[in-house]
Structure formats: C-alpha cells, structure tokens
C-alpha cells in the first residue's frame, strides 16, 4: 500500500486530460476537502501532488426501501467502513476514495442510476446490487458501458441457469441456490433418519430455486426421502398461522425454510407459539441474515441455521472480523449480517486489482486492466480469504450450524459451526445445476 506522500508524479499523467480541465480542478479540490481522511500534509503540497490525490470515485448501489432495505443498509455501512479505513491508510495508489451512493430499486430506475454513475459522475467502478431481478438487467448495461461492476449479492442467473457465462465487466455474486445446497449437504449429518420434509419459501425465483436445489441434494444423500408439502407465501406476508397449521397437519419430520428477511423472525415466533419445533426438526437456510432478531425466547436450540458467507461470532474469525463486528456494534447497535462481507470483499478486491494492474504499468490503470486483474484475484475479506473465479463469480465460504442458547446474547448463535466452500457447493463454471448435483459421488 503506497502512502500519498510517496506519490510519484507519473500517475497524474494517466488522467492528464481531466487535470487540464479547470472545472475539474475545482471539483477535485472540493472533493479533497470533503475526503475526510486525506492527509493534511498532502493538501498543502505542490500542485502535482494535489492532482495525484484526485479522489477515485466509486459508485455504490444500495437498496434503501422495502423488505431488503436492511440488507442494503448493511452493505452500504460495510462499504463506508472500508472507505474510511482505506482513506486512513493513504487511499488507493495515493488517491482517496469517494463514494457516490445511488439507490437500487426496480430494474428500470436502477439501470438509469447506473448509467448516471458511469456517464455523469464518471465513477471508476460500480459496487453493489442485491436483487437478482435488478442485476439481471444491470449485467448487459455494465458490459455496454465498459466499467467494472462488482455485485454484492445479485447474480445474472435466470432461475439456476447463468445468462452471462463470459462477461468482461460484470462481476457477480455467488449463485443464489448455494446456501440451500449447503443445507442439503449438512441436513443428513445432523438430522439422521429424516423421512418426510415440508418446505416453505417466498413465492419468487429465490424461494423456488432454493427448494428445488435442496430437494435434489437431499435426495442424493437420503434417496427414500419424501417431500410432503410445499408452501410459497408471497414476500412480505406477516401472518403465517395458516401456513404453520398446514405444516403441522403434514406431520413432516422436518421443515425447510428459505426465508431471509423479517418473515424468518415472524414464522419462528408463530411456530414457537404452537410448539412446532417440539415435534419437528427445522432447517433455516438463510435466516442468519436477520440473526439478531432470532431471540432465544422463541427460537429453539437444535435448528440448522445458515449465515450465508459471514458468521459474526465465528470463534476462528480473523482480527479484521472482530474489529469490524466491534465497531459496527458500537456505531449501529446491531451485529453485522453477511451482506457486509460481500460488500467489503467487492471493494477490497477492486483496490487489490487496481494495485495489481498498476504494478506493471506504474500508472493508474485503465478500467479494462482493472477488470482483467480482478479475475482470479484473492483478498482478505471480513470472513477470511475470498476470490473471484475466472468467470467473474464470487468464491467464498458458507457458514451454517446448529442453534444454541449458550452465549451472552439475547438471540441464538450456532455451535458447532460448519464451513462449506463454494468449491464444494457451487456448480462449476458452465455446468448445469441438476446434472452436476446428480453426478456427485456420494
């Protein structure tokens, strides 16, 4: 990591045209005064150093409203934490980071904001994107505008099929169905003798895909398992008493649930109220996204609970994770969910790619060189080492485990903690999901 005071004049030539534009000079000065962490010494340096420290603008797309607003907030908070940290240690190649935040909403408006970020704000890269409904539309736009786009949590999958197998500029999240596959792998280990399973998920692509993938995986381990009930309430429902009654009537040995927002908390509460998990095992593939709302009073021990790619209380967690959790709690009075890890990884991998691409050319690299450098790059994220696969899909670990009340919080945590890599649980580049699952040697 290069400190600003060590900056050489060369990199400024990389954006010489902008430097010659007087309007830009004023703006960059304003940007500098706004960039809190840029070192004071730097600002009073001679003009070349000032230009050298011209902020690098990164666009951020975050969901601000609706069911996924907490997820968007978590991603944005982590990105801001990252930016503050990077700026404190001298920025990227000496340039402070400046975030330009826009809202992710529906596909049409988000595409407009994406274009604005690239064409008007002239950002070097865009970070973010959660809803696959939106990111499916963003993928081709990113290719068109020739600017790296790193998606927090959105893919370019239609169902479980990849629509952009060979992108140049789009960098996509983990396949949506991975957490269901991980849960399918872990279910037979913890719940031996399961014969019948009921499933509930949200009535859109994610809910259906998770349920299909989970069934395919579980069938490989327990060939005679029967799937006796499937329920798909629409997203945003706050009363599941009728669904729970139907689940009880099904007399299944186990319930698989892929809820990930407030509905996970609600179904847990309403299930506890009728004692559902006294007679039934439970798998919650994604409820770790709202982990600190799963209070001990209504969340039993012994459920399989998935935290996606980051478990805030990982006993083997790195000093970076521990520092992040501590500061996040102090600032927001919450314990961070997994989206923070996706967001941190995106930003950190972008920084690493710029530094890698610059090393050869000694100048601020072209966008294309950064995109190329991102392929296969590995960095330390909050959850540990994470990387980009050559086909621009995130590689990481998934954390799931059995719920326990033995902790100092008022909500459940997991013990033991199972860590499953995407190398095991995500279909390889170009593979068909169900063919791949059916080809496993078990």
């Amino acid at each position, binding site marked *: 990591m290069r400190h600003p005071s060590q900056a050489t004049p060369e990199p400024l030539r990389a954006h010489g045209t902008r430097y010659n534009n007087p309007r830009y000079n004023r703006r960059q000065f304003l940007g500098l005064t706004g960039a809190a962490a840029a070192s004071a010494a730097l600002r009073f340096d001679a003009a070349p150093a000032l230009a050298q420290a011209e902020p690098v603008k990164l666009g951020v797309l975050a969901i*601000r*409203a*609706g*069911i996924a*607003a*907490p997820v*968007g*907030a978590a991603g944005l908070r982590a990105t801001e934490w990252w930016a503050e940290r990077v700026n404190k240690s001298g920025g990227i190649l000496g340039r402070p980071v400046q975030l330009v935040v826009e809202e992710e909403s529906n596909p049409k408006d988000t595409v407009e904001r994406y274009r604005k970020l690239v064409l008007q704000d002239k950002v070097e890269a865009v970070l973010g994107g959660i809803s696959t409904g939106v990111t499916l539309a963003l993928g081709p736009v990113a290719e068109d505008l020739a600017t790296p786009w790193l998606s927090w949590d959105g893919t370019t999958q239609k169902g479980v099929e990849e629509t952009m197998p060979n992108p140049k500029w789009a960098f996509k999240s983990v396949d949506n169905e991975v957490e269901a596959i991980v849960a399918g792998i872990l279910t037979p280990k913890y719940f031996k003798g399961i014969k019948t399973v009921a499933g509930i998920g949200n009535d859109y692509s994610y809910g259906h895909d998770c349920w299909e993938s989970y069934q395919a995986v579980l069938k490989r381990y327990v060939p005679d398992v029967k799937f006796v*009930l*499937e*329920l*798909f*309430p*629409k997203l*945003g*429902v*706050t*009363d599941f*008493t*009728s*669904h729970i*009654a*139907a689940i*009880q*009537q099904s007399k299944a040995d186990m319930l698989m649930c892929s809820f990930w*927002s*407030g509905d996970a*908390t*609600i179904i847990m*509460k*309403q299930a*506890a*109220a*009728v*004692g559902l998990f006294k007679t039934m095992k439970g798998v919650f593939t994604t409820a770790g996204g*709202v982990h600190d*709302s799963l*209070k*001990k*009073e*209504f969340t039993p021990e012994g459920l399989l609970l998935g935290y996606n790619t980051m478990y805030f209380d990982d006993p083997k967690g790195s000093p970076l994770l521990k520092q992040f959790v501590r500061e996040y709690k102090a600032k927001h009075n*919450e314990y961070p969910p997994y989206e923070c890890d996706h967001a941190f990884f995106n930003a950190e991998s972008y920084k690493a790619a710029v530094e890698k691409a610059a090393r050869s050319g000694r100048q601020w690299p072209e966008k294309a060189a950064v995109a190329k450098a991102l392929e296969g790059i590995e960095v330390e994220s909050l959850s540990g080492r994470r990387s980009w696969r050559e086909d621009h899909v995130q590689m990481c670990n998934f954390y799931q485990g059995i719920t326990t009340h033995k902790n100092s919080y*008022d909500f459940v945590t997991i013990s033991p903690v199972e860590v499953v890599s995407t190398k095991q649980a995500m279909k390889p580049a170009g593979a068909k999901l169900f063919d791949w699952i059916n080809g496993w040697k078990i």
Partner: protein
Amino acid sequence: MQVVFGVQKIFNLACGSFYALGAYVGVSAVGWYAAAGGPPALFIVPLALAGLAVGAVGVVIERGLLSFVYERDETFQLLLTFAVVLMMEDAIRLTWGTAPRSTAGLYLAYGQTQLLGATVPVYNLVVIAASLAIALAIGWLLTRTTFGRIVRATADNREMAAALGVDLRRVYAKVFTLGTALGTLGGALVIPATAAMSEMGIELIVEAFAVVVIGGLGSMRGAFVGALVVGILRSFAISIYPELEMLLIYLIVIAVLVLRPRGLFGGAGV
C-alpha cells in the same frame, strides 16, 4: 377505514400506514415498559395505550391535509392518502430504521392452551376478545350515543346535517381520529405475534381492499363479514391447495363485483 369512508366519503389508503405506525409505536412502548421494569403480564396495557395515543396523528392529518380536499374529486383524495402512505413509510424508516422490529418473547407471556386439539397461544385469544369488545363498543357508540347519531346523520346526508347545525369540521376530525386510533390500536395489538416492518402498511391495504369489496364499502357489518371470509378462505386454501391462496380471494372479489357490486352489505348504512 369503514367508519371514515361511511362518513367522509374518503377512501383512506393511509389506514395501512396507521396500522404500521401503531405497530412500531407498540414495539417501542413495550420496550420502554420492559426497561422500566414493568411486570410482563401487564404488557398489553402500555401496548394498547400507546396504540390508542398515537391515533392522535389522525387529527393532524385530517386538519392539515384532508380538510382541503373534501370538495375535490375522489382521485385527489386517493392520491393524497397514497402520498401519506409513502411519507409515513419513510418517516417510520427514519425513526425506527430499516430492520424489522419485534417484541421478543412477549407473545408467549400468557402461555399456551389446548383448544379443539390444537395448541393456541393465549395472547391470540386475548386479541380476539379485544377485537370483539372494540367492535361492540363501536357498535354501541354509533347506535346508542348522541355522537353516534350525529355521525350517522352526517353519513346519510351531510348538507342536511350541516343545515341542522352540526359542525361538520368537528365531526370529521373526530371520526377520522377514531378511525386512525382503531388502525393504530390494531397495529399495536398484533405486534407481539409478528414483527413490525416498514412496508407492512401497504400489505395491509391490499388485503383490506379485498375485505372492503367483499363486505361493501362503508358498512361495519360488511367489514366484519368480509374479514372473516378472507381470513377463513386463506386458511382453508393453504391447508387444502396452497397454490390457490391468493387467487381464491381475488376470485371471490371478482364474483362479488360482478354479481353484487355494492358488496354483501353495501348500502346497508353504517
């Protein structure tokens, strides 16, 4: 909503927001109550009081906004109340944040009981009893008190009521506040069983719309029967053929609209 529509002829979409607001205020009230060391068994008292108290926001919205559009086209009223829905959603998000809020384990504070072979949380029975009590109280208020007579007279013929010396502004403010308080109280009472989410208001409006169409606009009995029809149909559909859950309700709505456009109890008065 029914009372408000019956009297003021305003189709108030914001009723869903009042419900959400009641839910959030309920969560906070119970939180403060628990922090102050109040006995858990009585948590329903601060919950209901908070729900009722925040109904006061009704006066502000009625006087500050709605009073300007009574003479306008229904479209203006619909748009205005929809604007209130959006603003309240953002206000809630600013105040309470984006994460869902819930009252931890209070739902089970009253324990569970066996009813017809099923385990039922006692709190559900308390809420059912409270709803019936509220319905009866509203019925009594509208049919047995002077205020009720004035409200019904206004609903029937507002020019005549005004000509007879009824201060329409005060009646409107009172009725709207009553309607708001019912919404916020409902939100507060339901919250221990679920979690408060900023978009819960919009969810409720959709369902309320079906209830109102089935029951008939402006009719209290219609609302009661419509709610029962929607609730029971949903439960049956989920148990028997889950794919039908949403469809069935809208099929009934369509059937009612085609066969009996005024709803089951429409036009029967308040």
